């Protein structure tokens, strides 16, 4: 799905920042996910669905099918034999995981066609992919069910900022001026606009009817210990964001390593010695992940 920049631009005659509600409601194209995602989602959530049925739904979208097969056959999964059909992919990767990968693919696709002078999209996704990879490695270590959701969270965590750059570029210019005087970018957003990209992203996901786990993971990625229900999602994304920033893989606008929420670190209970493993794996996987996802 492609969109034109002017479709989402929110010009405010009063020159005041629009309300967050206006921003979310005004983002026509970004405000929806492709129908096929919802079809996949409802099939995955129906306990009577078979692998073949889900395979059939996905196969109707040839571009999505091709992309998912490329991902499943990459070192991201490391299967020894080639996966040639979506039904086979569903069988070995799992329905929920494949649904999450379909979501990741749909979201990246949704933002294609954005002019380079607005945002360096490659750099933006590089950062998001690095956060996703780090989150996935942490999720596997924590023996969390469906670690792919942490990958999706990484892809989504800064989506709100993308919306800000695109929909309210003049307000974002004011934010960037504030940021240039010191402090963190999300703090500058909050000071100038009254809310930050995490809130915008969380609300956008809520509008997309995505699960609360994802909504909270995005909403609280700078303040994970404040998440009311899904602290693990928020904490994993928070730590993964810090690690991606340390690796300096891509950039979504922030130049500095965000402060670590000590409570969130305690919630995860990770040994510090594990950090080197995460960094090494992300560094190794990032190049190929960027190739298969972008």
């Amino acid at each position: 799905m492609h969109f034109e920049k002017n479709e989402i631009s929110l010009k405010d005659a009063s020159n005041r920042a629009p309300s967050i509600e206006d921003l979310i409601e005004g983002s026509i194209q970004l405000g929806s996910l492709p129908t096929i995602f919802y079809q996949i989602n409802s099939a995955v959530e129906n306990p009577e669905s078979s692998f073949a049925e889900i395979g059939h739904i996905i196969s109707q979208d040839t571009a999505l099918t091709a992309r998912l097969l490329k991902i499943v056959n990459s070192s991201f999964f490391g299967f020894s034999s080639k996966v040639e059909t979506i039904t086979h992919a569903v069988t070995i990767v799992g329905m929920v995981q494949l649904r999450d990968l379909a979501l990741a693919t749909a979201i990246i696709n949704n933002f294609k066609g954005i002019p380079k002078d607005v945002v360096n999209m490659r750099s933006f996704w590089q950062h998001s992919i690095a956060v996703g990879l780090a989150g996935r490695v942490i999720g596997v270590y924590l023996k969390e069910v469906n670690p792919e959701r942490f990958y999706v969270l990484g892809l989504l965590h800064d989506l709100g900022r993308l919306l800000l750059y695109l929909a309210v570029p003049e307000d974002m210019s004011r934010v960037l001026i504030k940021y240039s005087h010191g402090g963190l970018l999300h703090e500058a957003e909050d000071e100038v606009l009254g809310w930050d990209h995490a809130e915008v992203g969380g609300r956008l996901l809520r509008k997309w009817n995505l699960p609360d786990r994802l909504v909270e993971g995005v909403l609280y990625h700078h303040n994970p210990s404040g998440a009311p229900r899904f602290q693990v999602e928020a904490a994993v994304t928070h730590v993964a964001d810090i690690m991606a920033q340390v690796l300096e893989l891509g950039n979504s606008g922030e130049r500095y390593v965000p402060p670590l929420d000590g409570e969130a670190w305690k919630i995860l209970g990770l040994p510090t010695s594990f950090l080197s493993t995460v960094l090494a794996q992300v560094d190794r996987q990032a190049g190929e992940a960027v190739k298969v996802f972008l």
Partner: protein
Amino acid sequence: MVLANHARDLNGGLLLAIGEKITDKHILAFKAWGITEVEIDSYEDENGIVEGQSSEINVESIPTQVREELDELFRYTDRRHPAIEELIELCILKKMKSH
């Protein structure tokens, strides 16, 4: 790679003790005993640099440019937290390798 926990066979017999360095020979032995995964404590790169262990980096040996980049990158982070200390050290190793 160094073991983070004892590696035991299916009957609980000790195969390799915690803290031991894992060699190719050990991996073959693990496979023979049906052990598909073990917990490791550190990662050793192709240059033999063991990450994940506190390698005491001599501050004087860090190039000024690397130190300045680190000061900038970690400007708003509490460097006293053990996780951040570890990340700073890993960041120094990475930057020194690429300089």
